[in-house]
């Protein structure tokens, strides 16, 4: 004699031996743990439960009304353990990380541009950073010197704080590549 339980699997009622139920629960949990995103896991487990219900129904008839351990083992063999079936599933996470990496490199850095300089490259660098013609900054600084009291001070501060792009890498950073 064995104790059985009633379970609802994909909206179907099945009578199942207690030991077989424990095994089935353990299997479904192991599948669920394999997926990072919760929504994805829920959906895949639901699909697999649906398939299990379908397989169970083919295993039952008038002489056999209860799902046994043997049936559960058969089902697991057909659907496969997650560590086995996931081998054939492309890992999307890996490819995603690669493209993120490219993105991170695209932020621009503010440098003085030695290839585009009149005095120090401050205006050239500003032009590259803001993606405008450096002549705009040159005119602004000249106007500031002539018409305002602040004179050359802002220009000199920028000259001091902005590093010069010397290496190839720094020049790439300056242009945002």
């Amino acid at each position, binding site marked *: 004699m064995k104790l059985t339980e009633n379970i609802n699997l994909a909206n179907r009622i099945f009578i199942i031996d207690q030991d077989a139920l424990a095994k089935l629960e353990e299997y479904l949990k192991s599948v669920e743990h394999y997926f990072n995103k919760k929504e994805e896991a829920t*959906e895949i487990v639901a699909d697999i439960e649906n*398939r299990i219900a379908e397989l169970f129904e083919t295993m039952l008839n008038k002489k056999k009304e209860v799902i046994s351990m043997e049936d559960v083992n058969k089902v697991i063999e057909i659907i496969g353990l997650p560590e086995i079936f996931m*081998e054939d599933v492309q890992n999307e996470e890996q490819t995603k990380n690669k493209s993120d990496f490219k993105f991170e490199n695209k932020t621009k850095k503010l440098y003085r541009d030695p290839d585009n300089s009149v005095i120090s490259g401050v205006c050239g660098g500003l032009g590259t950073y803001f993606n405008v013609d450096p002549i705009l900054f040159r005119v602004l600084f000249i106007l500031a010197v002539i018409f305002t009291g602040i004179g050359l001070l802002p220009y000199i501060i920028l000259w001091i704080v902005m590093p010069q792009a010397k290496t190839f890498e720094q020049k790439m950073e300056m242009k945002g590549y």
Partner: protein
Amino acid sequence: MKIENAKAQMRKGVLEYCILSILSQKDSYASDIINRLKEAKLIVVEGTLYPLLTRQKNAGLLSYRWEESTQGPPRKYYKLTQEGEKFLDELDKSWTELVEAVDMVKNLPQESKEN
């Protein structure tokens, strides 16, 4: 290098392509697709299919509808979306190119032998 590994890598690449191809012929539910893939010996265990279908659906390549079944639980019928059809067209092209490329590479040593 294990032969099983190399085979699995090849299979992995064509599996998603084959699922889309099957669905372009006829809207199908998971077990139909499984039977076709098993026939072609492309999958060993059925579980492989479910994560692939879910990901293709989440990527907008597939949509699904529920249909009652006379035997067993209701079935989820998958269908290619317009985007899925475009995607499949691209894969068809690159598959043809790939087959041609492999043929070309494989045939070269024979030609050089003749020379």
